[in-house]
Structures are given as C-alpha cells and as structure tokens.
C-alpha cells in the first residue's frame, strides 16, 4: 500500500472525505489542492487499481475521483467496488467519453484538464448531496 495520508482541510469542521485514484502524480497533487480549496478532506491518493481496491476495503470515505486509465488498465473494477460500497464517484479522463464501456457512460465524467468550477459543480451533483446538504 502506497497511500499518503494528508492533514484535514481547514475551515470546515466536518469536511467530506474524498479518495483520489490517479496514477499521474502531478494530476493527483492538483486534485488534492483543488479539493482542499473546496473544503474537502483528501483521505488518500491511490495510483494503482490494486491500491485502490484495498483502500476501499480498509477506509471510510464519502466520495471518490477515479481516473479511468491506471497504468494502461481501465479502472472499471474500482468503479464496481465503489458502487458496491455505495460511494458516489466522478470519472476523470484524458480520453473522450465514448471510450468508456457502455454501462459506465452514465457516471459523471470530468475531462482533463479541468478547472475548479467544473470540479465543484460535478461534486455538488453527486447523489450524496441530494440527501444531505453539507456544503454551503
């Protein structure tokens, strides 16, 4: 397991916990920064499918940002497991959406590169926020 723990994001007393699954370090660090700016707490960065699957088993978190392609392998297995644990997630990709296998095209997707505003609005669209609104 190669997961780096991070300090909690400031400002919010009860921030939502997010998992980043991303194999490109620069992208992962940017996401971490953006999420912290938006008031989320990044609980881990996983760079491989294997790491992500064991992280999901061990840790509790509220949502995830999932890169579609991890070291050349599509991350559908991680998506399925997140679904099993009822964790809402957003796909993040440098590929066009049509590259996704059909059953996965329904999930929200962010095209790289993306800006803080689109990340924010996609996060707010996740089903989690419909049930229990926490961010103002």
């Amino acid at each position, binding site marked *: 397991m190669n997961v*780096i723990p991070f300090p909690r994001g400031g400002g919010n007393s009860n921030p939502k916990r997010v998992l980043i699954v991303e194999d*490109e370090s620069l992208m992962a*660090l940017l996401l971490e920064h953006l999420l912290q700016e938006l008031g989320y707490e990044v609980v881990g960065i996983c760079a491989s499918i294997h790491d992500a699957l064991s992280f999901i088993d061990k840790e509790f978190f509220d949502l995830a940002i999932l890169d579609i392609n991890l070291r050349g392998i599509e991350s559908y297995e991680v998506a399925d497991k997140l679904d099993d644990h009822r964790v809402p997630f957003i796909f993040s990709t*440098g*590929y066009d959406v049509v590259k996704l296998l059909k059953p996965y095209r329904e999930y929200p997707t962010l095209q790289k590169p993306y800006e803080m505003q689109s990340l924010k609005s996609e996060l707010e669209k996740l089903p989690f926020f419909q049930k229990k609104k926490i961010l103002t």
Partner: protein
Amino acid sequence: MNKIFTAIKEQAVSDSIEMFDDIDALKSQAKRMLRMMESAQMMPMEIKLDDWDGKSLDQLSFLFGFGQGTLSMFLDCVASDDRAQLEADLLQSIQSQKPCDVKCRLQLNDGTTSWVRYQADYTISTTKNSASLYGFLTDISDSTSMQEAFYEAEEKYRLIVESSTGFAILTINLDGNVSSWNVGAERITGWKADDIIGKSSSLFFTPEDRENGGFEEELKNALKHGMAEDERWHMRADGSRFWGSGLMMPLKEKDGRNKGFLKIVRDQTEKRQEETRRELLVGELNHRVKNTLASVQSIAQLTLLSKPEPADFVESFTARIIALSRAHSLLTRKSWKNVQLSDVLAEALSPFHDQNHLRIQFKGESVVLTPQQAIALNMTFHELVTNAAKYGALSVKDGQLDVLWHLTDENRLTIQWHERSDLPVTQPLNKGFGTRLIQQSITGELSGKVEFDFNHSGFRCFIEVPL
C-alpha cells in the same frame, strides 16, 4: 404453312403458265423475283450431283438464282478459314444423302466478310436419274455478328470472374445458398467451390451477423436499393476473420423477378487493420496531449502556491515545463520504449551538467524504463537537482553530486543521490511542491520508497522502485 404454300403455288402456277408465251412478261416476272429474294436476303441454290466424279467438289455444277457455273466459283468466294470445314460438311451430306445445314463466311469485294447459311435437302429425281442438294443460301451476317459479340463479351466476363484472384465473386440463390464461387472466393475464404456450392452463404458471415440479422439486412438492402454496401468481417474456412469490402446486388430475371444475388468482395483486412491502428494512434495522441496539458495546469497551479511572486513563479514554472518537455523529447527519440535510466538522468541534469561536469558524476548498470517510470523519475531528478543548485551542493564552488544506482536480484531499482559540500545541511526539501511531487511520484505512481537524509556530510536521497 404447307397448305398455304400449296394453295398459293397452284394459283401462281396456273397464272404463270399463260406468261410463258410473253417474253417481256417473263423478264419482268424474273426481275420481281430477284427483288423479292434480295429483300428476303435469301437466294435459291442448287448443287447438281449427277455429273460428279466423286472426287473434287470444284467441278460440280452450281445454280444460284438465275445464274449457273461450277461450284468452284462459289467455293472461291468462301473465306479461306472456313473453306475446308464447308467442303467437309458438304461431302458428308452428299455421301450420306442427308440434308445439309452449314454456315460459312463469304469474302466480299470490299474486303469484308459476311456470314451465310446454306440449308438444303438432298433430293433424288428417279425419273431423270439425277440427284442434287436443293435449298436456300441465307444472309445471316447481322444475327451472327450480334451473337458473336455476345459470346465474346460473355467469354470475357467469364474469364474475368474466373481468373479474379483478388475478388471473391459469388452468387447466391433465393434460398440463400451459394450457387457459384470463383477462385478469388476460394483464395480469400479458404473454402473450395466444391465444398461450399449448395451450402448456406451465411457460413462466411460472422456468428454476430448471423445472430443480429446482418446477413438478412444486407440481402434486404440489396433488394431495396439495387445494391448494398458490404463492409463487414467475414469468416474464413479455418475460423479466422477477414474484413470484406464490396457490394451485394440482386440478380434479376428478364421479367424483373429476383432470382438471387451477386456478391463481390475484396479482402481489405490489412487496410482495415491499418485504419484501426491509426484510430488508436490518434486516440492515444489525443489522450497524451490532454494529459500533458493537465500536467502543465498542475505545475502552474501548484508552483503558484510556493512562488506567489511573478518573477519567482515564471522561473520555477518554466524550469519544470522544460524538464517535462525534455523527458518527452527523450521518449520520442526512443519511440516511447527502451529508455535508459542514464539518459533520463542526463536529460534532467543537463541544465546544470555543462558548467558542473566535473562535480556531477553518475553511474550504474544499464536499466530500461517504461515511459511512465521515465517521466516520474525525470520530474524527481529535476526537483532534486533544482534544489541542489539553489540550496545544496551545486550552490557552492566545491560541492559534489554523485548519483549511483543498482538493480537488485528482485528487479528493484535503487538510486542514491548523494550531495557533498561544506554547507550545513538544512531541510529545504521538507516543504513545498518539490517534496510532495517526489513523494507522490516515487511512492504513489511508481509504488516505491523514498527517504531523505539530512546528516552532516551532505544531503542524501534514497529511492527504491520496483521495475
């Protein structure tokens, strides 16, 4: 018909008998007869056999319309190619005393030839003790040349179809079974004509097309539009697939009813594979461009956190972008494979290596990296060397940098970054984007380990990465 002829003949003969006395009437009657025969393009022709010596046909007497002479006069007009056959046919008829029906070409004065047909009965006159072939010579040049052209064209098409090895040309009857199969179809599909004719043509459609009705769809489209484009995978006899590109057309009877289908297909597997490769390549390029732009975005935003001053920002940002760009250049030169660790290190250190070549040393065995490992290590080295130039061994005159690496038996790469100088070692790396990037690249992206050591003899970094 015979009754009609008899009736007309009886009437005509009774009238004409009265004309025998009038020579002018006979002349004009003969002229009319000639005109009638010309317009019917036929002429009575008799070959008299009673004075024949049984050897040469040339000397037989020959009556043609109102003229007469020896048969040689006629034979001399026959095209030289046809003469032997004609003589043989005539002899056969005479010797067997049977009717003859022969065709030959006549050589005309203008140099052209014209087809004629001679149909005659072998008649024996017992009262006169004579025999002759008696019949008509008909001009059949028009119908014969059309037929010839037709046969010639058909022969040409047959040859094209049968000899086309690059095209599978086949016909399918209304039951969907194969009714013809050329050598091209044999070559492309591997099925011999004998093995597939009579069998269902769905055999060379893929199971998917058979299931989802692709085969029926193609037949329907062919009927509806007069032809259907046929671009799909097909099956070979050995179960492998080929990309067939061509057309399916309905075959019509004269009355317009459909009697089956004609399918012409080329094997375009290679072209198809090339297209697929190109699509993949363009997709991959698009992916890399987007990822690279995302990296640039990250570098910009994250550099800004530690370098809010524009001048500092530009310097640090530019150096990182150039480091990334050098890594890409290196990968491109090596076609994104077989990149050596020493090459990556040389690229990352090159901005500092020139003026410090005596103070920077690196060595280790040959290690081949994947593109991802190359880029992650390149950014790591860039952060380390930038730090060394600002705060570490390369920031003072007598500083020394050694980079040593080794490949363990478990195929793990260990790298030692060792700086030596008189400077007191601080912990500048402990904060900021550079440290975070190294940690994430080595422990996250490359599933390895990284340790920073700030003991008194100089800054050290220890990296271990599984290959």
